């Protein structure tokens, strides 16, 4: 019989090992799934995880895809630590793109160097505004932020669709549902020549460092760590739950909004009905893969970015449906959560009586 025996302390080794273990198990299961789909599992895994990054352009694309994931996940992780479950980052991303991108469209013949910084601010504000709604509803009306933030994601996506089909449609765009292209002053500068790696990637690194400092050095970071580990103790010393809800939702929303702005003013360059392949949802997995720590999230973001690239490549070369990416991501999160048990418990084989106790 298998039993779980609580550890006195969380195992530090397991904190680092369990994500690695989860990734390995996902690869094994992935190989089995590929075999079921009639593909050679080794070929398929190679196509999925090695081929996308065996050249420098591939590696640069990895950073392009990891950028929004890392930025969003750092914000979400702060909330998850405090039991604030913002799962509407996809909607906040969309609102950030609408606010920031809207500015670029309004000033579509601008050449001002002030346009880009203003778009940053509006993008973050748009995301924070969209996250403020669940924060308000949770703190004032006790409404569950999981459901409200998710419902608002659908609303934001529909609103973007309305804008690009209607008032913001490109007047010279042959009736395609997309906005004008942003002016050059509203496009993020490329930081590596010959790639699509843009300024947002540098911001992502900055967000990781800032998040790390916030968590380890600031008072609110200390509170976040305590609330997550010992909610009752936190309540006794009087940490205000409402403040935590506001802080984590506004921060997460602002970062998601920024990530959305980076997508439309970076790789996309205009507003379209669809601006994200679910980065806001994948970032949830990234946050867990990174163990809710900004530095871990940096690695987690790169790994999840690889699943996007691998999925695209597998679609082209192996004819696998794109959904394989989502399936992999879900399985990885399952294994992560399952392996987490190892940090808190030891697995013991054999019955209790084996330890000398008689039943």
């Amino acid at each position, binding site marked *: 019989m298998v039993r*779980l025996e609580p550890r006195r302390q969380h195992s530090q080794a397991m904190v680092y090992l369990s994500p690695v273990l989860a990734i390995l198990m996902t690869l094994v299961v992935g190989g089995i799934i590929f075999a079921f789909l009639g593909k050679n599992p080794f070929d398929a895994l190679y196509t999925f995880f090695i081929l996308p990054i065996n050249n420098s352009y591939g590696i640069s694309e990895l950073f392009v895809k990891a950028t929004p994931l890392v930025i969003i996940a750092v914000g979400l992780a702060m909330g*998850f630590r405090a039991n604030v*479950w913002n*799962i509407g980052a996809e909607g906040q991303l969309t609102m950030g793109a609408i606010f920031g991108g809207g500015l670029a469209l309004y000033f579509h013949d601008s050449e001002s160097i002030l346009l880009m910084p203003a778009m940053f601010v509006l993008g973050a504000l748009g995301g924070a505004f969209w996250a403020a709604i669940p924060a308000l*509803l949770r703190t*004032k*009306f*006790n*409404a*569950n932020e*999981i*459901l*409200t933030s*998710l*419902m*608002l994601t*659908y*609303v934001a996506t*529909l*609103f973007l*669709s*309305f804008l690009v*089909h*209607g008032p913001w449609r490109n007047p010279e765009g042959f009736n395609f549902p997309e906005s004008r292209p942003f002016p050059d002053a509203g496009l993020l500068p490329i930081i590596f020549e010959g790639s699509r790696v843009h300024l947002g990637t540098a911001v992502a690194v900055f967000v990781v460092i800032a998040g790390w400092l916030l968590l380890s050095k600031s008072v609110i970071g200390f509170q976040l760590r305590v609330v997550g580990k010992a909610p009752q103790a936190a309540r006794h010393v009087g940490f205000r739950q409402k403040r935590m809800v506001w802080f984590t939702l506004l921060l997460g929303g602002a970062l998601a909004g920024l990530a959305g702005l980076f997508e439309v003013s970076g790789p996309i360059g205009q507003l379209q009905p669809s601006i994200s392949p679910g980065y806001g*949802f994948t970032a*949830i*997995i990234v946050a*867990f893969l990174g163990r809710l720590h900004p530095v871990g999230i940096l690695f987690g973001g790169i790994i999840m970015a690889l699943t996007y690239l691998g999925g695209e490549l597998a679609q082209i070369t192996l004819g696998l*449906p*794109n*959904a*394989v*990416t*989502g*399936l*992999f*991501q*879900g*399985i990885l*999160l*399952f294994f992560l*959560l*399952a392996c*987490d*048990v190892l940090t*808190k*418990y030891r697995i013991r084989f054999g019955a*209790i009586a084996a330890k000398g106790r008689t039943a």
Partner: protein
Amino acid sequence: MEWIVPFILTVITASTPLLLAATGELVTEKSGVLNLGVEGMMLVGAIAGFAVTASTGSAILGILAAVAAGTLISLIFAFLTLTLMANQVATGLALTIFGVGFSALVGSGFVGFAIEPLPALAIPGISAIPIVGPILFGQDFLVYLSIAVVIGVAWFLAKSRAGLVLKAVGDSHHSAHAIGYSVIKIRYLATMFGGAMAGLGGAYLSLSYTPMWAENMTAGRGWIALALVVFATWRPGRLVAGAYMFGLISVMQLHAQGAGIHVPSQFMSMLPYLATVIVLVIISSDRAKIRLNAPACIGQAFRAAQ
């Protein structure tokens, strides 16, 4: 007024998947388990039902497959949260992400397939009565089943001994354990029932509401079902009212265009989601009512002291 009968018929078909999934989740939550994976389980049920129906030509086999598929993937959730004590919120999200990916992968081979929608059970003579006939006696059997299940669940929770045990487990798992009930086993069963019903709700979408398969065809209905359970303050009777209200809203949105109301379609499509938010706010702000009716141990892991 000849539009009224088809209108009511569409409301019923739009409400049934919500009612099925929400009834299952209500039982799961009553046992103290919060499974946020309803959307994923519905999608898996939808594709299982559709794939089997399209391959075998038998809707009955399809429905059975959907129930089995929903139950099976709810077992993943149960194993992670109940046996391994993983966080229920995170695991539920994982279940939804997994369900979206899995159903899309299996479904990629079934896009564009056509099947016969579930037949209406017509009773000769009675179903021909104007207005009342087609509405009350001309539905497919899953509609009747959804009502029967709600009545059954209401009876189970209020009157049966097993229902009392289930509620005890959800309200105070340590006491229930001390009396000798197997908390984990009961929660496994409640979670599986939730999975089966979500699978059935998904199958209703792909076999009857829109007889086809499309990626993400649940479009947030699993999440709306979760909100309905809160709306109903965990009482089955109010679940019926809630599900039919949402069915009405989602159908109104489709009919408004035809009725000459010129609001951009995207704003009409927002209605069910906005209504969910508003309804949640109204119900949740009555904290006393929530505390009175919500299972006290919801979302908490249970580990028997050894």
